[in-house]
């Protein structure tokens, strides 16, 4: 795992956020506020610019989108963003006017993660961004976990298929034509480790006769079968 454990300033400061609003006053105030909080801010003045940023190579992790913009509006941007095949989708907060609360449902249905009423209340916006950061962090650690599982799975797959094994010494032949001890073969290809022991039937067949042979000259010795081998 990487050093992303816990929700810290380090994670927050690395976050890129897109703000899209056609009104310059709201845009500037939002930009300034987010910069003060340590975000790296990208700006879009309308829906088309916002879409260019959201669909570009260096995509933001968070986006604060105005509901009503010329060109593409907030919900349409949400729909397009959700249709993209991204491993970790951008976290979208819609900005909406108080009188348009009914639109909130439509916005969330279109794929927004959250909404904030305009003009934004700083404390509320900050708290909602923190929720977004938490969700992103969860998705990141989930993606890490999936990657780990995929790695493990690819190793497990190496243990599938036909495995030639010597009928006498029980060595197996690997894909490079080497004959290996079965322990080494499995250890190289999985997380399994071997701990050597003796099964009861081998103990009876192999170990006990040897012990008895050793013990025979020293007659009268007790507890000979309890010895560790």
């Amino acid at each position, binding site marked *: 795992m990487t050093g992303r454990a816990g929700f810290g300033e380090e994670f927050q400061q690395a976050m890129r956020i897109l703000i899209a609003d056609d*009104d*310059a*006053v*709201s845009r500037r105030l939002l930009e300034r506020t987010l910069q003060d909080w340590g975000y790296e801010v990208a700006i879009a003045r309308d829906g088309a610019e916002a879409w260019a940023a959201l669909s570009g190579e260096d995509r933001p992790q968070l986006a604060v989108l105005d509901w*009503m913009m010329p060109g593409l509006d907030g919900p349409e941007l949400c729909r397009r963003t959700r249709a993209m095949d991204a491993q970790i989708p951008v976290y979208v907060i819609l900005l909406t006017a108080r009188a348009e609360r009914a639109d909130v449902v439509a916005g969330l249905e279109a794929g927004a993660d959250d909404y904030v009423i305009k003009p934004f209340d700083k404390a509320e916006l900050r708290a909602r961004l923190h929720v977004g950061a938490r969700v992103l962090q969860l998705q990141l650690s989930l993606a890490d976990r999936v990657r780990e599982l995929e790695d493990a799975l690819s190793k497990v797959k190496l243990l599938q298929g036909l495995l030639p094994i010597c009928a006498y010494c029980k060595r197996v032949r690997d894909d490079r034509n080497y004959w290996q001890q079965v322990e080494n073969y499995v250890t190289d290809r999985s997380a399994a480790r071997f701990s050597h022991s003796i099964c009861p039937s081998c103990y009876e067949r192999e170990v006990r006769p040897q012990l008895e042979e050793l013990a025979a000259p020293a007659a009268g010795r007790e507890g000979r079968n309890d010895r560790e081998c």
Partner: protein
Amino acid sequence: MSVEGRGVSAVDAPALMTRLEGDRELLAELLELFGTDAEALLASITKGLASSDAPAVHRAAHTLKGAVANFCAPAAVAAAVALESAGRNGDLSDAPALLQRLRREIDAVFAAVGRILASGTTLRNGKPGDDSRP
């Protein structure tokens, strides 16, 4: 709702300065941005009225409402809302009067913010980060 500058300030100065954490430079910058935007949006509304384009009136009034709301100016917001509603409902019969009212309220906002900037006194009302709205 409208106070139209009769004795009551068009701008809630303490709330505004709390919102901006006392940053006058930022306030001056926002006022300048608003000057350019408001002029263009009022022109769009005037044009929309002339061509009976209700959606255009609705859109421009909506944007203007969002912009002026940042200055903690309830009367101007109310005037913009009235015009926005008229545009949304497609009924522009009262719109010229509403536009006149909006112009007055926006002028009042400019005057009030100008006074705040000129006053030079610290209007910071509350700790930074304390953004409770009145």
